[in-house]
């Protein structure tokens, strides 16, 4: 037996690994789920070669004129059929021939319908002989880094860092407390800091596996770019994971039952799932709540990850999110060490 076997820090850390790896559900949520989510979103929001919008017109002449725009897929139908098609979403816009011109029937709260309206009007006006007073040409950009999948991958990474840290640490601490294992450990000569350090060691090791698996997948399958430096990205992941671990520790520092812990975790994570810009930009929320949105650790983590991966910004230019993450690391850790219930 080698010397390592006698080290309590080693034994505590290896215990954490064993317990994680022997829990099939944990493996699923940590490794498989984010990849499945990325695949699903990648498929749902894939960039079609040209985003063709379905429209219809009441006369063949109008239909022909609409079809001159490559962005429109036009068909002919009478007005009642067209209204039904509008209602069930199979077309976005219906152009109706009027005695003195044309009427567009569409839902102006639907962004796609608004686009269809602009394209249809342009096509019909051009067919009717309108010429552009200002000559203009388009330069099209189709490169990785500006697609939805590129936007959502750093968001999913941040969400995964949060979930695995808070669930991974929170549940196992509360379970150990509920099963009186904490109390038994405290009755032994175990050093308490080692118990917590073992969590950090196993968390950071699992972090490497999680991040490499997820980003490797995103890179290979979707060619998601990482414009920033890799070691800075690694530092950001570690910092974010430590902040979320501190939050997980705080959430689990008093709870006696899994039910209480689970409620607390959802209470902590739900606002961040909604507000922190995993799936869409957090800046879409009203200005009034922006200070709150910006102060959330997940917003800071995702901002920093997007800055690194999509824009290649260095750490020195993202001091605000880093400060937010550091604050979320220091305060919950200090509080939970004070209030931690060992029995």
């Amino acid at each position: 037996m080698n010397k390592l076997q006698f080290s309590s820090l080693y034994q505590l850390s290896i215990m954490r690994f064993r317990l994680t790896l022997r829990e099939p559900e944990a493996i699923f949520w940590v490794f498989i789920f984010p990849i499945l989510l990325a695949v699903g979103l990648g498929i749902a929001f894939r960039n079609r070669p040209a985003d063709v919008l379905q429209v219809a017109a009441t006369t063949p002449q109008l239909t022909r004129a609409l079809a001159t725009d490559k962005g429109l897929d036009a068909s002919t139908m009478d007005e009642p059929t067209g209204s039904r098609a509008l209602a069930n979403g199979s077309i976005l816009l219906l152009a109706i021939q009027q005695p003195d011109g044309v009427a567009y029937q569409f839902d102006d709260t639907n962004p796609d319908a608004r686009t269809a309206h602009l394209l249809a009007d342009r096509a019909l006006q051009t067919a009717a002989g309108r010429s552009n007073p200002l000559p203009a040409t388009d330069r099209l950009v189709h490169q990785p880094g500006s697609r939805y999948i590129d936007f959502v991958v750093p968001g999913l990474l941040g969400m995964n860092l949060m979930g695995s840290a808070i669930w991974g640490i929170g549940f196992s601490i509360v379970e150990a407390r509920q099963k009186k294992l904490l109390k038994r450990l405290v009755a032994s000569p175990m050093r308490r800091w080692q118990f917590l350090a073992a969590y950090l060691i196993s968390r950071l090791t699992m972090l490497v596996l999680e991040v490499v698996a997820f980003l490797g997948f995103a890179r290979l399958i979707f060619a998601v770019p990482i414009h920033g430096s890799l070691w800075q990205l690694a530092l950001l992941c570690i910092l974010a994971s430590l902040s979320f671990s501190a939050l997980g520790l705080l959430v689990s520092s008093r709870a006696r039952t899994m039910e209480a812990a689970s409620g607390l975790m959802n209470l902590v994570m739900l606002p961040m799932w909604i507000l922190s810009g995993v799936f869409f930009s957090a800046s879409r929320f009203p200005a009034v709540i922006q200070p709150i949105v910006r102060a959330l650790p997940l917003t800071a983590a995702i901002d920093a990850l997007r800055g690194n991966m999509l824009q290649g910004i260095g750490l020195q230019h993202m001091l605000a999110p880093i400060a937010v993450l550091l604050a979320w690391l220091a305060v919950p850790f200090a509080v939970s060490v004070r209030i931690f219930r060992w029995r």
Partner: protein
Amino acid sequence: MPVPHDASHTSAETLALLLRGVRKTFADVVAVERLDLEVARAECFGLLGPNGAGKTTTIEICEGLTAPDEGTVKLLGLNWHSHAAELRQRIGVQLQETQFPDKLSVEEVLRLFRSFFRRGITVDESIRTAQLEEKRAARVGTLSGGQKQRLAMACALVGAPELLFLDEPTTGLDPQARRHLWDLVDQLKQAGRTIILTTHYMEEAERLCDRVAIMDHGRVLALGTPQQLIASIGGEHIVEFAFTARVNESSAADIALFTAIPGVQSHRTVAGLHQLSVRELHTAVPCIFAELDRQGLHLSEFRTHSATLEDVFVGLTGRNLRDE
């Protein structure tokens, strides 16, 4: 083994455990009230009492898991205030309801606990002592109740403790698993280890303990060897009987006439049963029958047994140990 009937002359340094005026309240419930206890080295000492008597609070105060409101606690001449780290190394603890992680194996759990101690026995030795050789690689989740309890015992033993605390070591075990665990405690006693255990099984206290403190409502009601405690109720045998009065006669039975029988030490009624503690069965029982007959009472139940700690507890509190 020499049993110190009165340990008060022994100095605190040679005692394994010393409690003086220990008091603990939770909210407004007094869990332990003015407790004084002394346990000598190499002694097996039992705290016997019903659930809620304050046994677990007492043992957890000794283990340094609960701080007493008042009083002195000394283990091996040291106190928790200034020597916690050293004491943790020198004692072994088995708590009432520890659940080790289901997904770890027996050997992995023991390796973990062994790593906390500077000195101790090897993991192999602890597995042998607890007779878990066949379960060495088995996951904790697959163990039976008795095996889990022996694993808990092995975890308490890996540090080769000078002082071993066992909190209700056999509660919830079937009779066979209980006897198995008793054998294990016997071996530890023979090896000269100091053991402090709590139990609400009087037969366990009688079989394992050199001395027993009977506790109820946070107080020690009686303290001594099982033999002394049983002798304290005055008779070695207990006669239990119940009767119905003769029809059409309203006069109550005269109990004083029973206690006047030579050899009858005391009388009490528990749950409708009359109990007489009796020195010699063969002389007392015929007299009891004669008296029943004389008073015209119909016997509906009659039995005798050797006095046990249960009878001591009933004598002290008027309740059975297992009455909840």
